[in-house]
């Protein structure tokens, strides 16, 4: 009797999770299916789900509609450089907050946390003018510089650096290590797992970034892939076929999924679990 009840719970559990997975994956699978249909094949209703003549020609069409190579380069450049700089400066600030005692430390740290409640977007108009004065409109740096050090990143990495034993830091200081040396040679190697999981999250967020590139970049060949894809519906003289639009979305979604799965394989253990410590 008891056994029956337990398998009942486990049945509900698995059914629920399978439903969740279907909901999670279906839109993406639907996209992939349509993206390999020939233009002219029906895309409405259930007819969308059968592929009669799979083709990659939609992807070819994409290359004619948008400057994919420069867009891809722009996306990669901002994603990679944005992630690396953020990682470095957040870890550095997190290190200072975690391992140094200095006047105003707690107040400043609470201030950092409090800024999470303000959205930079609210100042978008003057920010646009500031960027113009700095000659950063249409420059990829406009996407990287403002977010070199973020509050969330500092908060998250500080939590990890707190766990680095003080003795190790003291020992290397006695050995004559400089402050930066301690950070670079002692702290960074220890918090590598945290850096890796934070890096994968940041990279995904940067890759998916839409508002700031939309605001700061104004030229087709300066766009990131995301902005170009968002404009696909009107790119082909207002009449881009659905299959071509979805080929475009596939081009932005699949790489980030592969990247994420790769990171999952890479970090065998819990990965993001423990991202925020209670």
């Amino acid at each position, binding site marked *: 009797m008891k056994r029956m009840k337990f398998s009942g719970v486990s049945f509900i559990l698995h059914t629920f999770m399978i439903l969740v997975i279907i909901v999670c994956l279906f839109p993406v699978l*639907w996209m992939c299916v349509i993206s390999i249909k020939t233009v002219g094949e029906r895309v409405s209703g259930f007819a969308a789900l059968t592929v009669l003549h799979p083709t990659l020609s939609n992807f070819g069409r994409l290359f004619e509609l948008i400057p994919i190579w420069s867009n891809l380069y722009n996306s990669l450049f901002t994603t990679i450089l944005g992630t690396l700089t953020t990682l470095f400066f957040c870890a550095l600030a997190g290190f200072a907050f975690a391992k140094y005692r*200095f006047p105003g430390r707690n107040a400043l740290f609470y201030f950092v946390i409090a800024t999470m409640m303000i959205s930079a977007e609210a100042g978008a108009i003057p920010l646009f003018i500031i960027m113009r004065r700095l000659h950063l409109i249409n420059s990829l740096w406009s996407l990287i510089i*403002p977010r070199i050090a973020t509050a969330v990143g500092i908060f998250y990495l500080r939590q990890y650096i707190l766990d680095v034993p003080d003795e190790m830091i003291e020992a290397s200081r006695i050995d004559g290590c400089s402050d930066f040396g301690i950070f670079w040679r002692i702290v960074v190697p220890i918090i590598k797992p945290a850096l890796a999981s934070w890096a994968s999250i940041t990279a995904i967020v940067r890759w998916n970034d*839409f*508002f700031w590139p939309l605001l700061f970049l104004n030229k087709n060949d300066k766009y990131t892939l995301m902005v170009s894809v968002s404009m696909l519906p009107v790119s082909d003289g207002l009449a881009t076929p*659905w299959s071509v639009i979805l080929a475009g*979305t596939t081009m932005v979604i699949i790489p980030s999924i592969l990247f994420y799965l790769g990171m999952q394989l890479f970090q065998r253990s819990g990965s*993001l679990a*423990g991202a925020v*410590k209670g």
Partner: protein
Amino acid sequence: MFKTLKKYRIPYLFISPFFVLFLVFQLIPIIWTTFISFTEWKGLGSPVWVGLDNYRLMTQDYMVADAFWNTLLYWIAGIIGILLFALMIALCLNSSRLKFHKFFKTASFLPYVCASVAMGLIFGMLFDENAGLINEIIITFGGDRVPWLTSSAFSKIPVIILFNWRITPWFTIIILSGLLNISREYYEAATVDGANIVQQFFYITVPLLRNIMFFCMLTITVDTWKMFNESYILPGPGSSNTSLFQLIYQSAFKTFKLGYASALSVILILILLVISIVQFAIRRRQGEV
């Protein structure tokens, strides 16, 4: 003063990038926005001082009212929907009875990885009134076509679904990390005392997750009040599903009413400020209990 700075120059140097960037790219813009909000300005030429005109117009503008109520709805739907689903999924993932644990965990995180803009285009097609798959399914089950994105009543739903669909996994992971931090010993002790699963949930899990839930609520609050991508890419009739921040963007960079847009930005900042003060106040009270 100078001496302190010199003595502690290294930690100050290490944390300075954040503060410099905050000053230049957040604080100054926000103060500047406040100034622009009292002017009329098309972007070219110099701003003309108009006092409170922009704020006065705002109270009469139904689009602002629409945007405010929409965003409020997105916020509430976000808090309830995301936290509920994230908690349920996290509890399942944390259950020792779940098989293929790693697969479920990885797959259920995928929506967060997908770009909201790209997913918006996809949801727009799925929710299309005449050609969308969702309506086709509804018809198969004997229902009528739902004007998802073509009526004010329904147009908010795809936006909410898209937003919640994409964001939930992120909070699932955060809640899951909280659950993993709860020692199994509590549950074992409770089982020995004869508490069932429901009791265990309410007397052990809920109190110990309070911090995490609070953190999630704060994050969802900021995320929903500055929502842009989802409603921008899934427009409904008129301003029926416009978010507040989207209205700011449109007033600023489509019709170039920078003064008006700035006034709206000021309101957005104030709203966020009030909400966070209230949330912290409530929490402090709970903390004392």
